[in-house]
């Protein structure tokens, strides 16, 4: 079993003169070596507050945070000096935290070595974001915390950041990130936490197994009847997409559906984005009711 690098137990954060405004409640999480945890949620849900507490930037008003190892934090506004060059930024943060002396390899891996003498303020937003990742890596951390790492970044740069995060995981570093861009989370996260109004509303372990999304070329009633007759657990509320719980393997379920006479147009895993939308709908329904 991998070592625990960060543990938060029942952490809460309140703001205001009388601590009346709750930003985070009963937030508990355990982060192990080589693990990537993603926090998702609406704006103002409490993601950044949770990350800042993990990074020791904010003190919690309740609960306990235990960190084993070094943490580096990449804030949403990137945390780099605009009037220092790429190289000077990386070197400064490396020096103050006694991090990597070989920062050139980090810059090369992120494909920004060519801009090492360029002022950070002269870089594009995507390049600045990559620089902020390089700054985090230069500190040789055990835990890296990213607040919106894909915000304003083009696809190529995002993929480079994703590759870097995968590399960190391989080297047993733990990564925590928050993101509005859920499309990259599927491929890097081991666990996703959905936050709403400062509370954890869903924990999702990845990869998602057992839940399939199927699109049929058939009428609603026919699909409903056949699935019922097959004894499957399913949710047809999103027709023509139907979520089916696959107790058996993907191939078994697929052949079962084909032999049932229904024409299958699409057969795939449920995505985080779909679960997230479902969670948000549930939350909205709860709030309304």
């Amino acid at each position, binding site marked *: 079993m991998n070592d625990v690098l960060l543990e938060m137990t029942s952490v809460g954060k309140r703001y205001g003169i009388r601590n009346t405004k709750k930003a985070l409640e009963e937030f508990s999480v355990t982060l192990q070596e080589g693990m990537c945890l993603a926090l998702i949620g609406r704006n103002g849900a409490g993601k950044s507050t949770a990350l800042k507490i993990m990074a020791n930037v904010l003190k919690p008003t309740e609960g306990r945070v235990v960190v084993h190892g*070094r943490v580096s934090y990449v804030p949403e506004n990137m945390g780099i000096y605009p009037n220092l060059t790429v190289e000077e930024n990386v*070197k400064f943060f490396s020096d103050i935290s006694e991090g990597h002396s070989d920062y050139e390899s980090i810059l090369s891996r992120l494909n920004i070595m060519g801009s090492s003498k360029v002022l950070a303020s002269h870089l594009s937003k995507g390049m600045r974001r990559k620089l902020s990742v390089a700054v985090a890596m230069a500190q040789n951390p055990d835990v890296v915390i990213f607040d919106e790492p894909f915000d304003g970044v083009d696809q190529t740069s995002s993929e480079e950041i994703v590759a870097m995060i995968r590399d960190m995981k391989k080297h047993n570093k733990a990564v925590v990130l928050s993101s509005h861009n859920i499309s990259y989370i599927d491929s890097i996260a081991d666990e996703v936490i959905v936050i709403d109004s400062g509370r954890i509303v869903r924990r999702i372990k990845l990869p998602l197994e057992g839940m399939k999304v199927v699109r049929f070329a058939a009428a609603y009633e026919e699909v409903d009847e056949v699935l019922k007759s097959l004894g499957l657990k399913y949710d047809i509320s999103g027709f023509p997409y139907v979520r089916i719980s696959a107790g058996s393997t993907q191939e078994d379920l697929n052949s079962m559906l084909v032999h049932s006479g229904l024409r299958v147009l699409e057969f795939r895993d449920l995505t985080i984005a779909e679960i997230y939308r479902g969670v948000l709908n549930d939350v909205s329904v709860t709030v309304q009711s």
Partner: protein
Amino acid sequence: MTLALQFRAEIKKQFILMKRSTAAPMMVLATFLLAMVSTAELAWNTPIYMTIPLQFSLATFSGSFVSFFILFMVYPSLSISEEKENGTYDVIRSSTHDTTGLDVARLIFNIIFAGVLTVTAVAGFIFMLLIRYGMLSNHVEIVVDHLIYNYIFGYSGLPSVFLTHTKTYIDEGFSLGLFMMDIAILFISILPPVLVGLIFSRISMKRSTSVISSVIFYLVIFNIYPYLISVNDALSVKYLYAGISVLFPGSPLSLADTYLGFTTVRISGGGFFSLPNQYFPAWILWALLSYVIIILLILYFMPSIGGVMDWRKK
């Protein structure tokens, strides 16, 4: 080992940032101009108090007020507040548990820079005094005073309700040792305002808050105490004020002079110009220009308020 590394890295970073920023040369320029403006008022009024145009009084007020406030408080405030805005402050706090090395380096850098500004201000005083007294006097002793009350309550030389009035001494003997001592007093007096500036920037999240806090602090220190003295005439308050006056030069130095015998700048006349007074109207324009520069400087450092920085980038 870590502390030494942190110290070295921070000092190096601060010097690189100072070299690259437009802030540092603008600060030096503004300090020079404002020191001249502050001195100009005294020079203009001395030895005979004269009627001064309203614009000039406004400009000299800004010079007296803003120069010291910029000199001692704003620059250190800006540096940390800027870090808070660009997120580097949080990155540093998350990656290093002990920031003593960084804090000490920052303090020392700010003292060095404030020292540079002090020398610049003294150069501004000297330059103006040479122009004014060049051929009139071989020796000048001058005491900086709080100007605004002179304009509001009259500058006849009589004590106002705030007990402050312009004081100048002419034809005092000049000695290099005395002159160096005055500069040393100015330099030592930098420490508390730099610390206060750093404290404000620690507390506030934005540069604008930091600057506003510094202004409020300035107003309270320099105006409430004289008021208390004048209203209550309490001896303990007088001594306290005298102590503060020594630590915070500028407006209350005349009181410090009264109680403790300190003066600010003594300078020997030189004789750059044979007819100094003919140049004086030009300095009124300089004064107004300085006022405009200071406004732009403050806007430049507070893009959230003035938007000048954004406009410049576009």
